[in-house]
């Protein structure tokens, strides 16, 4: 987003001011046309957010890249930081057992969120858009998981999944160790994550659907489209901005997926996720700042790939962009 903002200024060619009274030939907004006061206002409006982005996003990101080449326990001044080159990275890929399972789990999470909860969320939104009776009830029910606090979500699933006292084993009479058995516990987490994600996507999509001009549907109906065709040929293309948001949210959620595994067992024993590993190493008493930073740098690189793809898609199709 930040990259898109300066675009207009670069495209404005230098103009020799002064020519009052003559009409401008170009429609492009021109900086020199602004009054001094306006320039200050624009400067402030751009500068303050820029300052925030720099101090809160860019600087910490760079710092964490730098720290990833060090060994530091977070105690004492910067003088206690020890440079160790790429050792953190080589340790991560060679002797740190949770790393590869974490990568794998993150990928599985991404694929899963895309294929099931996102689709389900869209489907529910379409159904709810039909002005069913008690639609408010369904909306609330499906959206509830998104609003619940982390601690509560952990507690709810503990009640359901607990091996000895849980709902599932109680009803089915089984003794499956949903949380502890590393061959099944990640699936349990996927269900719990999907439970939240579905409601989130549903709400966003429902909001988008409400904004679709009814005339379009009527026109499609008049032209003899079936309901399916109306949705896939007319509504879905119109909803493009929402679709992109849903896409982005899904990617972000799968990369950040963290809270549920954290409340279950702090991301261990089959529930490794990169975000959880970063937290394990950096936050808390462990304070392996350098090692954790290396992990978060890896996460940053992965996210960057997605950000680039996203920006390319968005920029290409923006009205101002090249078509």
């Amino acid at each position, binding site marked *: 987003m930040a990259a898109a903002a300066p675009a207009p200024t670069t495209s404005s060619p230098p103009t020799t001011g002064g020519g009052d009274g003559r009409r401008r030939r170009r429609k492009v907004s021109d900086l020199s046309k602004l009054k001094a006061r306006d320039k200050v206002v624009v400067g402030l409006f751009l500068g303050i957010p820029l300052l925030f982005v720099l101090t809160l996003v860019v600087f910490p990101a760079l710092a964490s890249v730098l720290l990833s080449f060090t060994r530091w326990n977070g105690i*004492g001044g910067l003088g206690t930081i020890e440079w160790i080159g790429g050792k953190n990275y080589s340790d991560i890929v060679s002797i740190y*057992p949770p790393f590869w399972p974490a990568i794998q789990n993150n990928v599985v999470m991404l694929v899963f969120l895309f294929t099931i909860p996102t689709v389900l969320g869209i489907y529910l939104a379409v159904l709810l858009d039909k002005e069913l009776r008690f639609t408010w009830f369904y909306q609330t029910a499906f959206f509830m998981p998104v609003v619940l606090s982390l601690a509560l979500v952990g507690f709810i699933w503990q009640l359901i999944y607990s091996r000895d006292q849980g709902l599932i084993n109680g009803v089915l009479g089984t003794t499956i*160790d949903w*949380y*502890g*058995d*590393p061959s099944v516990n990640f699936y349990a987490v996927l269900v719990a994550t999907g439970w939240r994600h579905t409601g989130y996507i549903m709400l966003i999509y429902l909001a988008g659907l409400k904004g679709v001009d009814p005339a379009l549907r009527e026109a499609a109906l008049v032209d003899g489209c079936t309901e399916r065709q109306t949705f896939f040929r007319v509504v879905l293309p119109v909803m493009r901005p929402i679709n992109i948001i849903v896409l982005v949210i899904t990617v972000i959620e799968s990369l950040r997926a963290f809270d549920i595994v954290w409340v279950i067992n702090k991301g261990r*024993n089959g529930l490794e996720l990169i975000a959880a590993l970063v937290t394990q190493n950096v936050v808390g*008493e462990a304070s*392996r700042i350098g090692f954790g930073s290396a992990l978060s740098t890896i996460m940053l690189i992965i996210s960057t790939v997605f950000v680039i793809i996203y920006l390319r898609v968005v920029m290409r199709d923006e009205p101002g962009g090249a078509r």
Partner: protein
Amino acid sequence: MNRPSSEAEYLARIVPPSVAGTRFTRRSFLRGMGVAGAGIAAPALLAACGGGDDAEPAATGGAGAGGGGEVTFGLNESTGAGVPYDRNIAAVEAFQEASGTSVKVNAVDHNTFQEQINNYLQGNPDDVFTWFAGYRMRFFADQGLIGDISDIYPIEGIGEGFVKASTGNDGQQYFVPEQNYPWAVFYRKSLWEENGWTPPTTLDEMKALAADMQSTGIIPIGFADKDGWPAMGTFDILNMRINGYDFHVSLMAGDESWDSEEVKEVFRVWADLLPFHQPDPLGRTWQEAATSLQNNETAMILFGLFLTEQFPDEVDDFDFFTFPEIDSAIGADAIDAPIDGFCMSANPANEEGAKEFLKFRASPENADAQNAAGFTQIWANSNADLEPLSELQKKSAELIAAQASIAQFLDRDTRPDFASTVMIPSLQQFIGNPEDIDGLCASIEAQKQSIFATEES
């Protein structure tokens, strides 16, 4: 759930009630100043912005105002924590009454306090704060983050073992012990009597007993490791029984190899015992394991004394024995008995008051104040009144007194980064797959060398 219509409304929702209570406009603030007086309004506002719940015991108002000023106290129990919080407040009130020094309590949730300790100590720590004896205390002492309090020693009733545990690497004291508790094998007396079971004294006896228990359909040994740390208790005790306390200490210090025959032997013995343990421990919380013991689904469990807090009404029917001997040359005279207590920050605002408070917390008077509030562990001070304590507590005190050596617990005896990022996953991996001991030990050792390389020796 209606969504907030404006950002302000949204932000207002996420502000905790303790803070929201002090949100007012400038006008109402000014009005408040006029009515209540700046002296009352302003500190309340500041206090509400602080990290934790600020609870000021009743006496703050005026009672002891003439005494030694005010001491700030960082407590690792939050307001809603029940007994642990209440008895701390009881101690604080008793101290205020006795000394005339007022204590301002900054109560923070237990785990949060522990996780934020690095930032806490480097920021603006309270004069006195709760902490544990062991590696981490000594480490902070080395870093100059906690204050030297050797001039309050010797403290009457605090024995040599406790003083040793309170001493930093430089030979000075940095810690005041208040209480500790043993790790032992707990069981229900009535169930054992009914079946004619008696506490084993050797590993072979324990295995025979376990086999007998299995034949009655009861799981011999309760086990839970979802939280990651309970299995450390089993590792500690097996290592101390098989290789002895001294080896355990140097292993924890990073001086012995985890890839050694000694450590592999520990895992082999453990693997041998695992079939007697409650299955699928990795998905079970220790509270659930306590319930299993209470319901006679399991016959015994190796755990800390605080296990009994899970069934306070039935505590009289429970007893414990120390983990049996494995190697007669080593014996069974070492256990984990973690010590909880207090440290003073490096630059306290009120050093004199802080030391007074620390001394009080190790005194028999402190015990008197807390016994009434439901204390469940054991006093460090040997002069403390044990009369109001339960049989189990008294027996615990005897058990600890009988030990030749006391360990603190794996995550207190070694580097916290090693304990949490290497040992927890490794022990969980072992429990899930006890076959690959060689691979596991090699992996632990490789990670240990990477982590312990930090240590400037």
